[in-house]
């Protein structure tokens, strides 16, 4: 009689091996999920870590004397004369203001020239002061207390981007300036505040990252979403109704079906080429206009909306249609009066998800010129450019734009812009989920 190789209590070599393989396999699975989740966590925390500081901004408070001799030569507060005074005149006034404030507070730092002190103020500040004076001419001749943006490097010092060691090597900032900034901070003249301008101001040029904001980009994205909503929702719903409720099975409808499923998988940049060739070169619409971006994103979003709308229509049970037809409704009435309202929550959810996709899309917008530098807020309608025809940028494109700039301060801005983008996406997806939970009916 042969002795058994093992029992339930004593595993033989082969069983051990098989069990080990089982355990290994299971570990691979856990590892894979771990890798996925880890990637998500690292991605989010890296963006948050780089970007949250964009929402705070360092400002310097000072008393500025506004000399009438320089700002209003006529002495009559005549707007036309005052408008001729450029920001070049305001620059030295600000520098003098800061120097006076330092003297009044008794702050002395070794090794600082007047030019160094001036360089601590953002180049944007003179424009802000000019706007303020033009808005309120009575300020001329008085000494006013103002707060102005600190330059990007000083701002970076309080966000960990610039240190005493890096300042030695940096041609744009000296350690003495940083010591002066610290001295100002001790006196309470230099404060770091929540940065509303980041959300409302337009983009700024390469030399003044501290003034760059998302105002134009958010407005441009909003216009585009409006165009997408107004065009894609009705067209998507109409074509879904046709395909789901009325279409006969023939070559033509088959062709449409194949087309829709293919369009859903076409790379987004191809839609950009389409927009450039058809809407700009052929139809003659203006480059970087939100209407063009909206049209391109509409074509891109349509398949998503059609697919989800068809699923929503399909989930309405046929008994509803039969009942409507039974009391004498036409097929069209059955669909529009009964099926469509019942499918509405599903359609809305799909539309919101499609819009969220469109909001984050970048590549096609690069090709239609939305990457241009735009400082003017686009008007919704102008006689020359029509509806949504003025140049604009969009949120994701602004991110790309900022990554192409030389100053590292723009990377912070780009990450901050992504946080804004992600918050919008989060809100849209949350609304979609709530809609689904609240209104979805199971038949």
């Amino acid at each position, binding site marked *: 009689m042969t002795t058994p190789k093992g029992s339930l209590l004593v595993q033989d070599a082969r069983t051990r091996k*098989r069990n080990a393989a089982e355990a290994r396999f299971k570990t691979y699975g856990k590892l*894979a999920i771990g*890798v996925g989740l880890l990637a998500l966590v690292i991605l989010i925390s*890296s963006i948050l870590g780089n970007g949250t500081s964009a929402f705070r901004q360092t400002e310097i408070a000072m008393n500025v004397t506004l000399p009438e001799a320089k700002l209003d030569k006529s002495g009559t507060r005549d707007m036309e004369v005052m408008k001729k005074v450029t920001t070049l005149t305001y620059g030295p006034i600000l520098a003098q203001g800061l120097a006076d404030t330092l003297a009044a507070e008794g702050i002395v730092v070794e090794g600082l020239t007047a030019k160094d002190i001036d360089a601590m103020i953002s180049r944007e500040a003179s424009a802000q002061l000019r706007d303020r004076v033009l808005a309120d001419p009575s300020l001329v001749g008085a000494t006013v207390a103002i707060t102005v943006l600190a330059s990007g490097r000083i701002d970076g010092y309080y966000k960990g981007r610039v240190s005493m060691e890096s300042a030695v090597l940096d041609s744009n900032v000296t350690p003495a300036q940083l010591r002066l900034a610290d001295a100002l901070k001790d006196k309470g003249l230099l404060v770091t505040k929540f940065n509303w301008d980041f959300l409302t101001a337009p983009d700024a040029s390469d030399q003044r990252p501290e003034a760059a904001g998302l105002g134009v980009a958010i407005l441009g994205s909003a216009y585009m979403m409006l165009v997408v909503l107004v065009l894609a929702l009705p067209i998507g719903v109409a074509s879904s109704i046709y395909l789901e409720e009325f279409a006969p099975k023939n070559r033509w409808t088959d062709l449409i079906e194949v087309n*829709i499923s293919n*369009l859903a998988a*076409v790379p987004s940049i191809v839609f950009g080429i389409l927009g450039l*060739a058809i809407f700009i070169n052929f139809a003659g619409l203006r480059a970087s206009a939100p209407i063009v971006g909206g049209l391109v994103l509409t074509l891109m979003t349509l398949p998503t909306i*059609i697919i989800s709308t068809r699923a929503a229509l399909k989930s309405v049970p046929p008994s509803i249609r039969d009942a409507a037809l039974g009391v004498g409704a036409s097929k069209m009435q059955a669909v529009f009066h009964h099926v469509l309202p019942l499918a509405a929550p599903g359609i809305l959810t799909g539309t919101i998800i499609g819009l969220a996709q469109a909001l984050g899309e970048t590549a096609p917008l690069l090709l239609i010129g939305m990457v241009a530098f735009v400082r003017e807020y686009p008007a919704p309608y102008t006689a020359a450019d029509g509806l949504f025809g003025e140049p604009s940028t969009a949120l994701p494109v602004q991110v790309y734009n900022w990554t192409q700039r030389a100053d590292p301060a723009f990377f912070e801005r780009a990450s901050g812009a992504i946080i804004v983008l992600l918050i919008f996406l989060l809100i849209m*997806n949350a609304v979609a989920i709530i809609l689904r939970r609240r209104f979805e009916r199971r038949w």
Partner: protein
Amino acid sequence: MSPFMMLLLVAVLAILGYLTARNRALSMVGGDSRKLASLPGFYGQNAAFAALIPAFAVFLVGGLLTRLSTQFEGLGAWSTLITSFPGLVPLLAVLAAAVCVTLAFTRSNPSYRARVASEKWIMGLLIAAASIAILTTVAIVASMLFESVNFFRQYRAADFLFGTTWAPDFRGNSSLGLLPLLWGTLYISVVALLFAVPVGLFAAIYLSEYAGPKLRAVAKPMIEVLAGIPTIVYGLFALVTVGPLVRDWLAQPLGLGTSGSSVFTAGLVMGVMLIPFVSSLSDDIISAVPQAMRDGSLALGATRSETIRQVVIPAALPGIVGAVLLAASRAIGETMIVVLGAGAAAARLNEGLVEMINPFEAMTTVTVKIVSQLTGDTDFAAPETLVAFALGLTLFTITLCLNVLALYIVRKYREQYE
């Protein structure tokens, strides 16, 4: 006539048509709507549609003709007509509206089936909306073909398709070979898939075969969040975080490169983006394998992993292959990650194997070059700009083939268990 004026007139015609057609039908039966073939509103609705839809159609066709006539010689007659009567198209549209409204009005009698007629208008709108999908595809292909033909008139097709150097020069005499770009694209996609397919597949297997409902309810949506994040976010992540990390911890210690942007960076980040794509598609497919097959295998004494490897995966294989192909098509068409993570220098195919396959070298792709050739100041007569359309056509063709193949495989497989 200005388009705005047209809009106003057509709107007035539609409202007038609604009221008069409805009232005419009603007055013909002395106000007793039971004697009408349709409800009175349908007579009005029919007339209103008769004003709006033909006017809109005429306006669209007219506008299209005007645009076409500026580009093609054959439509010169229309072009001269339009220049002598600038407001012709809106005028025609209003005329069309007026004619159709009058027709609808005269037809409005008690025996006229206005509901059927007005529903025909709606049906026309629905069909037009559904045809936009086809129009889009036609427009995509046409726009790229048209400009590609222009490109190939100036640049030999063989040099484009088989050229091994990419060196555009706006002063002329550039080498616009496709192969370096195609190599970069495929290389990055392969790196991305090497990362995404094992991770995505194992995640899908674990979630569908091992995980309890609690873990599933948490982990599945969390992984799918990765799919909802815009690609620009991944691009910035590659540029700011992954790129420097890969350079400082992998490339420089190994002495393989000093560039922050590289094939490995772009591939890795793209792989992360593709994880949810692979995992959720594979999850659906694995869940579709009938439970009876698993039960049979387990009953014979196989462990769960043996069942998965020898029964579930082979049964789901065609579907998984389809999912991988779809992911590959995504990877090839991806733009923002490679624009920010892979660099702008084309692969150097002529300088030896090491240069060609070093994953820590910056390498550019088809999509990156489409972006760089079409942004900034562009001259649509120069081959350096037009090449972008040929690249786009190449990209479209490759992804289309992959998609069609994937859909074919997935569909064919689905039928097996139904």
